[in-house]
């Protein structure tokens, strides 16, 4: 065995010299035999001839001898691939287009697969995620449970092997690179053991942190790189989170997004008995405990809660669904649409490959018939064709994988620049399963297509193919080509209509009346405290905070001019929404959007007053409470009458007087209808200082102004974090990133689809009109003009195209439901989009079929007929 392997290896390594040795050996044999024959009296020439005849075909012997060394397979491969390379190099345009299309197909397929897998199918990176349940308050509870309730849950070791509770918070990070405002999670010590995750660096929050009240913080990899430049000496460093000092004990793995993707800090929850939190609980099921058993236990527990406090908790329910990371449905839908668009491009590319290969297959039928007639068996012919398509697929696949790798790297760079953190998309990498599946698929398709000529040949007897002068097989393949053109047109039509609608929607969004003027407004985030309440920094009480911001505004106005700066608790489009609860008419509680602003806010933002007045400096802490409302609220609560002078009941005793009505303007999100809103003077009610933002109207170069503003603010408090300085127009375009992104992606893909399907049409028309040269020649001989021929060819190409467009348009209408949910004030059956797409497609196809038609028409009919 060993000697055979060695012999094969030597033979492989010295394949060429083996040939030389064999030749020399056979030559020696011939000479020796000749000598013998001459010695026996034969004449030398005849002896040489005789010796050669006795030996037989040396080439065959050589092949046999090489096969003796185990080289048979190797020789076959070399022969077939050598032949394949020669054939492909004779047709560089064909080969390059196939390789390019396969690269495009495999590349986009692999990239999409990796992204879809990451976003939609990858299980959460926790140990046995299916055993995790979340315990939420329901009924009169908006999802939360209280600390004592959680502590009761924690004792249920009959149901759970571990229980943890957490609450989200928004905190400012100082003490590292740049002041920053990030989402934090305050969690009980068991959280990470319940999830079963380990740290990238250092350790996680542990049970002992909760008990000993350690000020330990785990930071995200993002924050680690942003604030600590990814240095490993981060462990043990101190950071300030909204004024509280914490020691960094660990860095989170990047794939762990808990509970959602934009969290950057995890810190222990303060479980002192007086802490009041709205908690969410997560628990790991004990082996053998079912979800329904947990739910019935929670029903019993909820009944106890209702009994304990029948007044406050009369309608409390508890739900125990399997834990699942919540992803915005609109986001998922956008991703799905973009993937679908990629899929369409992939299919169009596949269609092109199939068209090219089939066209070539039909053209080669004659060659194949000749080879068959010369004695090559079907397997022998198939081997050659397979070798060709394998070469093409392999080259295309390698290029495609490189392209996919680059595309994903570009994608992560693009995503990192987006204003928000996308769930699951932080680290999309080439996926081994995706790579294997795509490459195998591509090889299979290529092999099938390459075998088509043999199937064609089986259909038409070889003799007929040889005898008939024209290149046959065209008739059989024509419906197939029409189908290819039609389906490409359908997919391209979907993409073009989609991008038309999305562009329409984005233009609409950008030109929409937002209720404020985003131009020349600069916004600076100057938060104090956290979402969960003020922290002891000397700015706890309402008057303290109000006085502090008054001083900040004074400083800013000194630089930027009086009346040009204002304070707002939640800037429009910041995504932060504040709700105040008011007693409604029939004892129900109604929540109203509320914003604390300084008196100049409306002037700075350009929100016009409709009736009444704005705030005056007289509205301070202690004076009678007043509000300004938007038109929507005024018309909803006081229909048919003036809202000015009316009162909003805060409780049984207290009322707030409405002093003015302003125009509606966009609120926390662009895609939600404008709701009733109240504006409170911040001197009277600054409730949400953690999101405080100063807005400035400025015409000057915003960069120098920003630096001056920073200095002015730090002159009041050098520790004031300024987490974001951005133009309002930039905030606006960030807020509409999703429609912009999908419009961009759809337009790009639509363009590629248009180009590919035009190329496909060109190739098909080029091929089919070449097949019809004879017919064209006859037509021209009997008097048809070049113009008639062009019209004939182009018209014929338009038929499958029109069918494809109709099918694509109808399919898009069918998908309108999905499209309309990502469109802004744009109907998904906007006729312009459909007509535009059809016009563009038709124009592209006319151009694509015009060139080959012209070539057919300009051929000399006589020589065409003679050639046939």
């Amino acid at each position: 065995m060993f000697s055979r392997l060695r012999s094969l290896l030597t033979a492989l390594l010295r394949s060429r010299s083996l040939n030389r040795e064999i030749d020399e050996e056979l030559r020696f044999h011939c000479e020796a035999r000749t000598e013998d024959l001459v010695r026996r009296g034969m004449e030398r020439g005849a002896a040489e001839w005789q010796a050669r005849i006795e030996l037989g075909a040396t080439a065959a012997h050589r092949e046999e001898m090489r096969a003796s060394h185990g080289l048979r397979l190797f020789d076959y491969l070399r022969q077939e691939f050598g032949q394949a390379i020669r054939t492909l190099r004779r047709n560089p345009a064909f080969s390059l287009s196939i390789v390019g299309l396969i690269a495009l197909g495999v590349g986009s397929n692999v990239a999409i697969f990796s992204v879809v897998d990451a976003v939609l199918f990858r299980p959460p990176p926790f140990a046995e995620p299916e055993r995790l349940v979340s315990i939420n308050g329901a009924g009169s509870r908006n999802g939360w449970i209280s600390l004592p309730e959680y502590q009761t849950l924690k004792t249920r070791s009959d149901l759970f092997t571990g229980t943890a509770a957490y609450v989200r918070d928004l905190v400012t990070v100082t003490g590292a690179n740049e002041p920053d405002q990030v989402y934090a999670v305050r969690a009980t010590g068991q959280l990470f053991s319940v999830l079963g995750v380990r740290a990238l660096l250092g350790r996680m929050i542990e049970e002992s942190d909760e008990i000993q009240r350690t000020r330990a913080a785990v930071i995200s990899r993002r924050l680690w790189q942003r604030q600590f430049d990814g240095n490993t000496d981060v462990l043990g460093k101190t950071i300030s989170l909204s004024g509280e000092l914490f020691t960094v004990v660990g860095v989170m793995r990047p794939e762990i997004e808990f509970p959602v993707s934009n969290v950057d800090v995890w810190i222990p929850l303060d479980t002192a008995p007086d802490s009041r939190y709205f908690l969410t609980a997560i628990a790991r099921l004990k082996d053998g405990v079912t979800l329904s058993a947990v739910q019935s236990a929670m029903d019993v527990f909820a009944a106890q809660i209702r009994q304990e406090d029948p007044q406050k908790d009369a309608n409390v329910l508890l739900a125990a669904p399997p834990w699942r990371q919540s992803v915005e449905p609109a986001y998922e839908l956008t991703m799905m649409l973009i993937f679908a668009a990629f899929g369409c491009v992939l299919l169009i590319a596949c269609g092109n490959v199939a068209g090219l290969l089939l066209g070539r297959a039909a053209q080669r039928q004659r060659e194949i018939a000749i080879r068959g007639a010369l004695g090559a068996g079907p397997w022998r012919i198939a081997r050659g064709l397979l070798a060709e398509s394998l070469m093409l697929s392999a080259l295309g696949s390698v290029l495609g994988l490189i392209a996919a790798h680059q595309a994903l790297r570009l994608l992560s760079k693009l995503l990192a620049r987006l204003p928000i953190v996308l769930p699951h998309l932080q680290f999309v990498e080439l996926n081994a399963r995706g790579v294997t599946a795509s490459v195998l698929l591509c090889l299979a398709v290529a092999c099938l297509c390459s075998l088509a000529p043999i199937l064609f040949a089986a259909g038409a007897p070889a003799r007929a193919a040889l005898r008939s002068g024209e290149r046959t097989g065209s008739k059989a393949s024509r419906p197939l080509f029409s189908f290819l053109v039609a389906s490409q047109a359908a997919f391209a039509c979907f993409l073009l209509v989609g991008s038309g609608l999305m562009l329409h929607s984005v233009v609409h969004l950008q030109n929409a009346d937002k209720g404020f003027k985003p131009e020349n407004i600069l916004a600076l985030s100057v938060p104090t405290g956290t979402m969960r309440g003020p922290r002891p920094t000397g700015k706890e009480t309402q008057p303290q905070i109000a006085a502090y911001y008054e001083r900040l505004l004074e400083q800013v106005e000194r630089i930027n001019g009086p009346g040009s700066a204002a304070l707002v608790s939640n800037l429009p489009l910041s995504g932060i929404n504040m709700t105040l609860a008011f007693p409604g008419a029939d004892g129900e509680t109604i929540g109203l959007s509320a914003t604390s602003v300084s008196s100049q806010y409306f002037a700075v933002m350009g929100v016009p007053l409709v009736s009444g007045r704005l705030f005056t400096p007289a509205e301070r802490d202690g004076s009678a409470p007043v509000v300004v409302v938007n038109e929507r609220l005024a018309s909803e609560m006081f229909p048919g009458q003036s809202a000015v002078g009316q009162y909003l009941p805060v409780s049984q005793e207290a009322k707030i007087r409405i002093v003015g009505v302003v125009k509606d303007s966009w609120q926390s999100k662009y895609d939600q209808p404008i709701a009733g809103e109240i504006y409170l003077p911040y001197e009277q009610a600054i409730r949400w200082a953690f999101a405080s933002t100063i807005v400035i109207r400025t015409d000057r170069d915003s960069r120098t102004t920003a630096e001056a503003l920073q200095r002015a603010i730090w002159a009041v408090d050098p520790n004031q974090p300024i987490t974001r300085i951005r133009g309002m127009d930039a905030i606006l375009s960030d807020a509409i990133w999703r429609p912009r992104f999908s419009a961009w992606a759809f337009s790009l893909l639509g363009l590629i689809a248009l180009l590919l399907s035009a190329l496909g049409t060109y190739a098909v028309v080029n091929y089919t009109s070449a097949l019809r040269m004879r017919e064209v020649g006859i037509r021209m001989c009997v008097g048809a003009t070049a113009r008639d021929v062009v019209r004939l060819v182009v018209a014929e190409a338009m038929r499958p195209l029109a069918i494809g467009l109709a099918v694509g348009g109808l399919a898009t209408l069918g998908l309108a439901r999905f499209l309309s949910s990502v469109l802004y004030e744009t109907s998904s059956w906007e006729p312009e989009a459909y007509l535009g797409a059809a016009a563009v497609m038709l124009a592209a196809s006319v151009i694509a079929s015009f060139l080959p038609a012209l070539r057919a028409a300009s051929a000399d009919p006589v020589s065409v007929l003679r050639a046939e």
Partner: protein
Amino acid sequence: MIKTSELLPGTLDILILKAVSLGELHGYGVLLRIEQISGRTLEIEQGSLYPALHRLEHRGLLATEWGVSENNRRAKFYKLTRAGQGRLREQTSNWEQLVATITSALRAQPDEA
């Protein structure tokens, strides 16, 4: 003359091993030696000789060496390896056994059946 292709499969291999066991030979020499030791009753088809030689070489039964022939030409010489000697002994005894078995089978009389 009997052609080697009409013999039992594997016969050519034994003949080659036997021929080479009598002394180092080049390919043509093997041909002549087999004709000689078979009393010119066996005719080797030259087309199958060389693949067989290379096959035996590949299996490690023959070793090769380039040398100079009797008329001063460069030629490839084959000689038996240790494994080749073993295989020849084994094949020879197999052959003898086969011949004895077949011979006795062919001499069988009706009453003995």
